[in-house]
């Protein structure tokens, strides 16, 4: 966690948030309004004002992070403050309500705020966990490089499959055709191992090929390599060589495809929460405007 946005500036904003929450809690405990704590007491108005200012400032982060030339502190510092002050809103806003919850626009604002905050918590978790996972998964390669290698492996496997006969070729070309990387939102987040299917396809075709031509029972052979050896004993040396290489190429491709799918998955996990966080933030802004206007409209 060295140098993460959480410990930025020696937890400066954690302390700011803690002091803010602590002060709010102390004030709330000390304050004893009639008839009961709510948003309409002087403390209620104070906490509400603080809360609105924090929310507006947190929303400004979306603009600040696009201003690459801004000199108002580092973006990491801003993110650190964004996370900690955003979290402190749970305490500040709850105390502002005096725990009066209802079916109305005021509670709507609270609920939307919680949705934004908790989606943000997922974001924090994703930002702490996934960058490292992405780096580990790529193993010093880029996604582009992996995709290029897959393309090459496809070409190689087609060539090898061609040497192994039309049936194998058909299977391999079908597997290339059906390889799925990425896709729908759901498929990106929960990828299926398409190359595994392709791999099984090839093995099955090899079994068929073998059974028809050589009557060798390969059902119980434990591994691909044993199977290939067994096959190789019974077919020509050119085909034997091609099949052996084909299995190597296919297993490498399988690993690469899995890596790329995982890469897409991790990136999608890092992004997906923002599609809730951002739109709900705007709903929250609208409900806040409505809340403030309504409160003073029917003062």
């Amino acid at each position: 966690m060295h140098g993460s946005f959480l410990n930025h500036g020696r937890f400066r904003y954690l302390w700011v948030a803690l002091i803010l929450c602590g002060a709010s809690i102390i004030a709330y405990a000390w304050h004893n309004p009639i008839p009961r704590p709510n948003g309409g007491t002087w403390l209620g108005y104070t906490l509400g004002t603080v809360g609105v200012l924090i929310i507006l400032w947190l929303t400004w982060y979306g603009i600040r992070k696009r201003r690459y030339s801004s000199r108002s502190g580092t973006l990491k510092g801003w993110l650190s403050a964004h996370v900690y002050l955003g979290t402190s809103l749970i305490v500040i806003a709850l105390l502002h309500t005096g725990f009066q919850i209802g079916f109305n626009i005021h509670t709507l604002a609270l609920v939307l705020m919680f949705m934004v905050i908790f989606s943000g918590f997922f974001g924090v978790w994703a930002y702490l966990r996934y960058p490292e996972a992405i780096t580990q998964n790529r193993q010093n390669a880029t996604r582009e490089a992996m995709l290029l290698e897959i393309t090459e492996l496809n070409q190689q496997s087609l060539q090898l499959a061609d040497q192994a006969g039309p049936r194998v070729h058909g299977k391999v070309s079908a597997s290339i055709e059906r390889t799925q990387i990425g896709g729908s939102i759901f498929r990106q987040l929960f990828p299926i191992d398409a190359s595994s299917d392709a791999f099984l396809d090839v093995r099955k075709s090899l079994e068929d090929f073998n059974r028809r031509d050589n009557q060798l029972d390969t059902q119980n052979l434990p591994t691909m390599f044993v199977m290939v050896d067994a096959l190789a004993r019974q077919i020509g040396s050119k085909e034997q060589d091609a099949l052996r290489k084909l299995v190597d190429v296919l297993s490498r491709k399988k690993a690469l495809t899995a890596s790329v799918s995982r890469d897409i998955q991790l990136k999608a996990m890092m992004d997906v929460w923002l599609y809730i966080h951002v739109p709900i933030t705007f709903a929250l802004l609208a409900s806040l405007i409505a809340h403030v206007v309504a409160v003073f409209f029917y003062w």
Partner: protein
Amino acid sequence: MRWLIRKVTRRRKGAVSIEDDTHFGDVLTIGRGADQAVFLSDLKVALNHATLTRLPSGKFQLESLSPGGVRINGMIEQRETVSIGTKIEVAQTQITLIQPPRGVDAAVELSVIEGQSAHEHVLTRAQAVSLASTKLSKRRPAWIAFIATLLFALAIPIVSHYLPGVESMTRKLHILGLSAWTSGAMAAPHQFFAEDCRSCHAKAFVSTRNEDCVACHTTTAAHADPVKFQMPILQDQACADCHKDHNGAQALIRAEQRLCTDCHVDLPTTSQGRSRLAPVTDFGDGHPQFQVTLAAWTPDGQFAPQRVPVDRPNLSEKSGLKFPHDKHLVADLNSPKGRKQLSCGSCHELEPGGAKMKAVDFETMCQECHQLNFDTSAPTRQVPHANIPEIIYMLDGFYAKRALEGGWMDTSAPAVVRSRRRPGVDPALSAAQRTEALSWARMRSSQVAQSLFEGRACITCHTVSRTVDETTGDPGWAIAPVRVAGVWYPKSQFTHRKHETMACADCHEAKTSKSSDDVLMPPIQNCRDCHAGEASKTEVATACTSCHGFHLDGQPLMSALAGGATLKSSLESFLPGAKPAQAEPSR
């Protein structure tokens, strides 16, 4: 059968070259083999990849010979019936069935699928590789959420406020209109009109005004007379300062004692000398001794009740009655109907409301023993109670009748009174006889009256004095007025019914009271045996409002004071020289 195979090659700058070839045969073979009609060199293509056969219907049968299949209009298929216009994709080549020109039975157009770099093609047909390239978006939902929320949470309620028609429409359509703004449950008594926000919130951006409250609460009295007590804390107070609605069904009437003690902790100072009420901070340990209200009159006859601390030594009530409680509460009291045991309840009954006691009634409570009969010759006949002229009239009449009838068995009476006369047989009395008889009757009536008033009846309980009638000069009697305090503690609200678990003697020491001068009201110490201030955890927590109200009977009505958000403006109209208050027309 004659096939036209047209190869279309796109070159730079949009130039297109077309190369036509003809194939004869029933089947159009597609593959990488040298013998194929449509020869594709791509390694992904099988040697014999697919065949295309024309069907009698004019359509074509496409059959994939490779397990990889072919894409038809984007979907991978093994066998499919296709028609003119169908796009068939084999590896990087698109084969489109086109309308055959004249002289040809069928035609296909071959073109290379472009726009995909090598590695993109791995992703097979432009699969999205990031969420940004899916249909997912942030901007559009953000705008939709923002505008929808503003519409339903702000625009519709505001319009509903100004246009009641819109509000009733939202109600009909079950759309959240103004009700979406309700900040909390209404107080129970206000719930029946809670749907109409405007009944309390008449003006936008103006806090609930007193005049909106007193529109219904017409008889609610103020706390103090604003003319006597010109204090900002009274004048600037709005109803809503204490009565905050939208805080639940029971939250409207406040009992917090600090609402009172804020001022009453030192009223002489806070009222700038206008009030001399003793300081109060808490019932348990900061409340003055109770004061009883005793009836009193000024020398010129004005009623001026006195407020006296109940623990003052030699406190006595001059009620005009003589009533020793102790004598009445002894065991086995001798009564005309035998031995009796009286209890407090024999004379003191609760009013139906349960707060106070009914007034003691002579006829039902005393007369059973204290009978007002006056002559042994008529032992059941009694004079009326508390009506002196009637008593005299009754006695006069009784004895006059007896004297004129005759037959009175009393040796001291004249003969005319004693002699028995038979009606219709004996002659009527002469004028002299009548005068003598009536003279005896008057004398007898006067003797009996004196005996009743001064001897055995009235004087038992009342102070009796002799009077002389100013016009006739006749002697008479006067009974001192009875002035029993109806309510001893009029400044507090005490309910006997709530204290029914107690014995009467727990508060009222009647058993040992020898005189009706004794004030049998309990002092504050008595109450403190059970009650303490609102913060008490060991005794009955008792806030100021348990006994005292804020809105006090006899004070000006709030409705007369309410003018704006505060009492100040209305107060000004009360001050000397002010213009008469202009009541705003109520809605």
